[in-house]
């Protein structure tokens, strides 16, 4: 059969230079008539539907959402769907920026239409095949539960019976899509399809992969950013199967990981010099603060005359804010099984960055993309960190050193935490001119810190705009006229990496903590002030109204040392508002209650939207209150969960969530819960104490 590309996606990606042939995974049993209808769907004769999802499952629930969408549009029971992430990146699996990646909270909003279209194509030809066979009008037939049925119920045939004849038919480019009425799965809190495997230890994560003949690798990586191995004494690892130099360190290969790890720790390595050998967080913070004082910096957004309006204004509010580097600290550390033999490279890993890994492996092996296979497992958390390919390169180089046997390289927690790829540290100076009614006449936001976009080849920094640094601020909703956003760049030794919500994570804090200061300066209630400024944005108002009502915003709090704070941030095309209640215990904020409302448009799985909101609150509280990465002598101080203390269960606040739908287009869900949390906590601390805390984390020594 000919393969029909999803036309819209194909057109959307036209202009992307790289065209890779679509990889059709092999049909598992040769004599079967399994039919690959399009890049996304294959139907097996045993009634199983294989859904090739371009998105990795890292806990965000996208696989369940994709299964719901396909089950409804195709007309099958969700239990018949198996999900497979394609082994080779290809155009139909790439996002709008030309990369196959599981990022940007794109999982549902980018793929719902291609998956509906693909499912409708398959449904249409299955129906057509039955119509021809039965000599009836296709319009009298429909699908349900893996069957084509006539509307009078008189005739029926399973998809399996129709596969052979349906596969002879041409797929329609514009099949009729089912409406959202009467759907069985979409819009329902369908249980996650991966839950059973996650209850008995059978779910396979990258770190769990076991292949015949496999060896194990442990790493020893540079304690200083930018240093390479100068000399290794190989005699300290004489029992190793191999000792392999890799970028930034070495891999020791042995029969068991524990043995390899002991040898890696004992290696006698002399490290080369690094330009960053003396760098500390204090130096970097000083450099960033100095950048705030620079008279000018390259502008990312400029409208009207912010500087002039600020000079002329009678009421200017100004405040500086700072956030630290953050580690991802996903529970599953970095790991990969690699194999390089017979001109072919295979990796088994928990990755969210398929094209990044592909490129890294092409460079490391010299093989073409067509010889590289990426077998995606479940991800034990990722949060942006597992976009990168360094461990894949290590595993493949290690395999090469042991005659092509597969090698599983596992990083220790300390390696994971100390090797960079951090959410960037950043400083901001916020200045605004208020008019007498409290509205914002002019705003100047100066950022000083790294520009993460420099580390990404697929997006360029154009006209001063870096999408990895300027989200939320570029289109802040508070100042229409006289707006200036500029960025003094300070380069930093560690690599920086998208961290859940990327720059929205820090920019949401800067903007909403400052908004609270503006409301206070205007003498207005924080919610009332926001309502007034956001009056022409119905979705913003809807989520604000929800949290005001459900938090009993104006009701008395249990004690004088309590406070309530609010924040609202639009990110990833969703609006999230949060009200946080804190109790101050000896100057330490304890978060007691969080009320959250999200408008993400149609919620494909409200149960999973809630799960992501619960998770974002808990995940965000660690960095809001106490987590940070600090540098000393060119390396990272923290190494494990004892000094990078993410939240524990007793600290979980009471959580109330409402999903509101104002009819907006589908937005992201995995990330938008994060940005409003830290500012809402900081604003609650102000409400409780009258003191502004403008530096995250808010209670670093707890």
């Amino acid at each position, binding site marked *: 059969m000919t393969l029909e590309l999803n036309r819209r996606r194909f057109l959307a990606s036209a202009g992307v230079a790289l065209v890779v042939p679509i990889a059709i995974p092999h049909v598992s049993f040769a004599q079967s008539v399994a039919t690959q209808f399009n890049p996304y769907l294959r139907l097996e004769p045993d009634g199983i539907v294989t859904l090739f999802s371009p998105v990795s499952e890292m806990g965000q629930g996208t696989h369940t959402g994709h299964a719901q969408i396909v089950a409804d549009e195709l007309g099958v029971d969700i239990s018949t769907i198996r999900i497979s992430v394609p082994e080779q990146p290809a155009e139909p699996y790439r996002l709008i920026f030309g990369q196959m990646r599981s990022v940007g909270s794109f999982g549902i909003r980018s793929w719902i239409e291609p998956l509906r279209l693909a499912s409708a194509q398959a449904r249409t030809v299955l129906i057509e095949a039955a119509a021809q066979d039965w000599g009836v009008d296709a319009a009298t037939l429909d699908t349900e539960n893996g069957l084509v049925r006539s509307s009078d119920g008189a005739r029926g045939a399973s998809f399996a019976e129709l596969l052979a004849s349906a596969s002879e038919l041409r797929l329609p480019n514009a099949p009729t899509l089912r409406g959202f009425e009467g759907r069985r799965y979409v819009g329902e809190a369908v249980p*996650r399809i991966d839950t*059973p495997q996650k209850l008995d230890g059978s779910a396979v994560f990258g*770190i769990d992969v076991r292949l015949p003949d496999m060896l194990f690798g442990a790493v020893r990586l540079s304690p200083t950013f930018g240093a390479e191995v100068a000399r290794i004494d190989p005699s300290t690892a004489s029992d190793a199967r191999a000792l392999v130099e890799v970028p930034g360190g070495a891999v020791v290969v042995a029969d068991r990981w524990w043995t390899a790890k002991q040898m890696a720790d004992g290696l006698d390595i002399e490290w080369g010099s690094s330009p960053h050998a003396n760098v500390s967080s204090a130096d970097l913070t000083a450099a960033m603060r100095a950048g705030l004082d620079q008279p000018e910096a390259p502008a990312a957004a400029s409208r009207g005359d912010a500087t002039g309006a600020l000079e002329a204004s009678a009421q200017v509010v100004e405040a500086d804010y700072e956030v630290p580097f953050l580690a991802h600290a996903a*529970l599953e550390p970095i790991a990969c099984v690699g194999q390089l033999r017979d001109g072919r490279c295979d990796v088994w890993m928990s990755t969210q960055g398929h094209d990044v890994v592909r490129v890294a492996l092409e460079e490391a092996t010299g093989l073409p993309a067509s010889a590289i296979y990426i077998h995606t497992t479940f991800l*034990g958390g990722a949060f942006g960190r597992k976009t990168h390919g360094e461990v894949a390169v290590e595993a493949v180089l290690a395999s090469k050193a042991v005659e092509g046997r597969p090698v599983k390289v596992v990083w220790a927690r300390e390696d994971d935490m100390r090797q960079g790829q951090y959410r960037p540290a950043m400083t901001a100076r916020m200045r605004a001119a208020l008019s007498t009614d409290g509205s914002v006449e002019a705003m100047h936001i100066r950022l000083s810190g790294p520009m993460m976009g420099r580390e990404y080849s697929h997006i360029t920094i154009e006209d001063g705009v870096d999408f990895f640094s300027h989200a939320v601020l570029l289109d802040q909703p508070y100042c229409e006229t006289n707006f200036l956003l500029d960025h003094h760049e300070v380069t930093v030794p560690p690599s920086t990496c998208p961290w859940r919500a990327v720059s929205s994570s820090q920019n949401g804090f800067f903007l909403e903590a400052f908004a609270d200061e503006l409301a206070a300066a205007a003498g207005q209630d924080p919610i009332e002030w926001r309502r007034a400024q956001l009056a022409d944005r119905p979705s913003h108002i809807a989520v604000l109204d929800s949290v005001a009502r459900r938090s009993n915003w104006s009701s008395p709090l249990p004690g004088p040392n309590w406070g309530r704070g609010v924040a609202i941030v639009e990110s990833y095309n969703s609006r999230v508002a949060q009200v946080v209640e804190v109790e101050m215990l000896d100057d330490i904020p304890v978060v007691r209650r969080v009320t959250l409302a999200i408008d993400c448009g149609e919620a494909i799985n409200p149960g999973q939207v809630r799960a992501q909101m619960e998770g974002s609150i808990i995940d965000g509280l660690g960095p809001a209150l106490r987590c940070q990465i600090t540098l000393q002598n060119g390396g990272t101080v923290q190494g494990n969960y004892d000094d990078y203390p993410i939240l524990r269960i007793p600290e*979980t606040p009471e959580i109330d969530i409402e999903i509101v739908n104002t009819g907006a287009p589908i937005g992201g869900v995995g990330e938008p819960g994060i940005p409003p949390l830290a500012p809402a906590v900081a604003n609650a601390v102000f409400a409780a104490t009258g003191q502004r805390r403008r530096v995250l984390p808010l209670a670093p020594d707890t």
Partner: protein
Amino acid sequence: MAIAFVLNGTPVELDIDPDTPLLWALRDDLELTGTKYGCGIAQCGACRVLIDGVLTPACVTNVGSLEGAFVQTIEGLSPDRSHPVQQAWAEIDVPQCGYCQSGQIMSAVALLAETPNPTDDDIDAVMERNLCRCGTYPRIRAAIKRAAQISQAQ
């Protein structure tokens, strides 16, 4: 000398360095990967197993100390996910990424064995040693309470 113990009801013998942490013996020698590595220093709970019924981090327990012990891992909980804790976990749909969940479930099993009707404080006291970066704590709390009900109904 080989170390002999009982793993999920089956006698096993291991002839490895007795200083090897049980975590790595389970994962690499016995090929039971349900027990997870998260920190290696008894901080995250991802590796928690039952040794003679006592909840123990496998990452800091050397196999040399296990002669004659009864070790239970997530794989030995039930053949069909029918343990009340597994049932409750499924009903509440607890896991996100799932990586911490073997440890969470083993901790809940140990908690309920000691305290069939746990209060929130009882739950905190045992579960605070299990980290979840995905933030499934509210569902874990709800699922433990549900598991207590299921156990009592049986």
